[in-house]
């Protein structure tokens, strides 16, 4: 009997005022009873609109059916067929614009909490099932994967499940890419990423850290070593800055640097080896998910006050609704329709050795209003004359996107990139070079974890087809 409650089961979360001061996960996850109750809201539609909304095509009604039966491991088995990182996706996918946006229950009420159920199933498996995944029979084909972020891990996992001998090359000292350096602990605990990486290793995937493809080895050398195909999932790369005066001051970070210091380098610990500026007044410039992550990290690092500074209005904020709500609950102030024009710094003309010299003291901004829509239909922000004002600040975090990393392009002959530096691929993820595939932010520029995973999956299928047919 379906549960016809128009409202979904609320996700239990840590109290906002408590969580604003710790790095523990914000969302606590469904209990078994909540999960079964939520699963019963699914009508098991025959035409499965939700699956069409999933970039990796998880058989959603089937796994929810298993939850209804209380067969959580059965549900995990179904998800694992399509997704290599279920515990990650259940947490960071924007389900509200993917599977859940297609859910029939969403027409008159709230859609089924598919993401929450996926997370429940993955966590249940990780807690209660110690079985190693079965390592498939090897087919003898070797594939190299560049980058161990979501696209690379997905591609590696899918290929390993089909018997390929896969080696992942990671530039940093820890596998996981943006899942470990970018997304904070309170949204995606690092132990979960490590667990998913362990699962892939048990499937036979080899991970070589400290290898920068384009520097330590080139794509051509990977072929020389006997790899028959290469997947490039090297991520987005260089952070953008606004080009306003003062961006070189001490206390100005890119979101990538700020988050990397806190996440990968553990600057949030009491006695860290890698420092980050903590406390004081912090402004994060930008309105995406990364900006929300940076703002909420700053708060947890002990900031007195954290501002999001965004030049458009609330409606245009590119971040997930849920992240914006969480940020507001925690006390982050949104300065909307506001654009920085200069970052101000301390300068003592009488004492060049004053230790405060060169540090941020504030930011000059102007107020904006929304004008005519641009070519993409978004209303263009226009400066309001004579609206300049100053904010007193200690730290500024620029979170206004990234440009593709030049390393691989510069060392791989014949690899075509577009005007923005993204690697050009066809619908299978194949680049302009034979047997070289690419996906994720290296192709699209900054996007979501799940779209990168979708690209990794597409490429894995194409690589398998190409190598097994040959």
């Amino acid at each position: 009997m379906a549960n016809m409650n128009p409202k979904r089961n609320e996700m239990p979360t840590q109290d906002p005022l408590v969580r604003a001061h710790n790095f523990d996960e914000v969302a606590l996850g469904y209990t078994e009873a909540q999960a079964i109750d939520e699963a019963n809201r699914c009508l098991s539609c025959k035409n499965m609109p939700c699956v069409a909304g999933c970039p990796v095509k998880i058989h959603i009604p089937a796994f929810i059916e298993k939850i209804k039966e209380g067969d959580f491991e059965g549900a995990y088995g179904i998800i694992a067929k399509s997704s290599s990182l279920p515990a990650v996706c259940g947490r960071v996918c924007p389900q509200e614009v993917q599977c859940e946006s297609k859910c029939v229950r969403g027409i008159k009420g709230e859609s089924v909490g598919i993401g929450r159920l996926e997370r429940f199933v993955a966590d249940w498996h990780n807690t209660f099932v110690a079985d190693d995944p079965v390592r498939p029979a090897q087919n003898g084909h070797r594939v190299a994967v560049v980058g161990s972020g979501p696209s690379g891990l997905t591609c590696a996992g899918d290929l390993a499940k089909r018997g390929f001998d896969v080696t992942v090359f990671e530039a940093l000292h820890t596998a996981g890419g943006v899942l470990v350096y970018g997304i904070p602990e309170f949204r995606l605990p690092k132990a979960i990423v490590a667990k998913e990486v362990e699962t892939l290793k048990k499937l036979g995937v080899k991970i070589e850290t400290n290898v920068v493809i384009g520097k330590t080895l080139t794509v051509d050398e990977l072929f020389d070593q006997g790899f028959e195909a290469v997947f490039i999932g090297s991520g987005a790369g260089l952070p953008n800055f606004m080009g306003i005066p003062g961006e070189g001051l001490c206390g100005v970070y890119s979101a990538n640097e700020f988050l990397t210091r806190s996440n990968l380098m553990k600057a949030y610990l009491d006695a860290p080896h890698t420092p980050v500026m903590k406390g004081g007044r912090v402004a994060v410039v930008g309105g995406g998910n990364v900006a929300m992550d940076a703002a909420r990290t700053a708060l947890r690092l002990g900031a007195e006050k954290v501002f999001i500074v965004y030049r458009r209005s609330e409606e245009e904020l590119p971040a997930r609704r849920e992240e914006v709500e969480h940020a507001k609950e925690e006390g982050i102030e949104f300065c909307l329709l506001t654009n920085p024009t200069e970052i101000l710094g301390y300068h003592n003309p009488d004492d060049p050795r004053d230790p405060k010299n060169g540090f941020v003291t504030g930011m000059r901004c102007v107020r904006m209003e929304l004008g005519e829509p641009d070519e993409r239909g978004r209303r263009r922000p226009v400066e309001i004359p004579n609206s300049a004002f100053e904010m007193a600040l200690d730290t500024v975090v620029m979170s206004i996107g990234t440009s593709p990393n030049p390393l691989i392009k510069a060392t791989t002959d014949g690899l075509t990139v577009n005007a923005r530096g993204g690697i050009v691929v066809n619908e299978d993820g194949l680049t302009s070079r034979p047997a070289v595939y690419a996906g994720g932010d290296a192709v699209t520029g900054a996007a979501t974890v799940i779209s990168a995973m979708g690209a990794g999956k597409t490429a894995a299928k194409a690589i398998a087809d190409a190598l097994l047919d040959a």
Partner: protein
Amino acid sequence: MYQIKKKKILNPTVVELHVEAPLVANKARPGQFIILRVDEDGERIPLTVAGTDKEKGTVKIIYQIVGATTKKLSAKEEGDTLQDFVGPLGVPTHLDGLQNVCIVGGGVGCAIALPIAEALHEMGARVTSIIGFRSRDLLILEDEFRAASCTLRVMTDDGSYGEKGNVTLPLKEMLEGGERFDAVITIGPLVMMKFVTLTAKPYGVPVTVSMNPIMIDGTGMCGGCRLTLNVDGKKITKFACVDGPDFNGYEVDFDEAMARGRMYGAFERHAYEETCNLYKKEVQ
């Protein structure tokens, strides 16, 4: 893990290590750098490659003990291992076509300048080297520089060895005397590179400086190593890890780079003292 094959103390604060890292040894060229972590949870520090031995698969690094991480690194002995060692990063120093070059090194920067001098010498270029140190105790690599240079000038701040004064003195004297270098390549403290650049400017000699800002990933992801260049009256942001570490000295905003280098000064001093205390306790 990356094993230390050889360790040599060059002076009381400068140490030379040969680390087994065959992939890096195979690729590294003068001017490039590596990033290492001494142990789990340690910070990532960039150090410029001072030489390689492709056959043994080792990379030579020379560093000065200045903070907590280099202190910990100096406690490692031959046979010990380092947690991480990645590279070669950055763009190699551009040497093609150079025939008459002045190399100006300061302090531990001389360790990085040496492979460049050697490479130029091997190419058949005329190499003039000026190396400077605070005092005689801190002198390193004099014989090696002599072997790679047509002319060598050794300077000390206090005059305890060689000539007394800054490295800019002989540079100015040579340029004044009509010396026409194709390029001046300078590696050392920021303030020294700034004044080498200013010294060369009136003579129109191209100056290449090797920047060594604070870095984390070193692969063009975090943007922490950015510096401002003034190019044709316009300020542009560049990243030392992927665009450098070498830059045109006339374009670099040295004052900003120096301020950025001091960003974590208080933290670093504290961490250094803590590390020293830990080692003292161990000894007791």
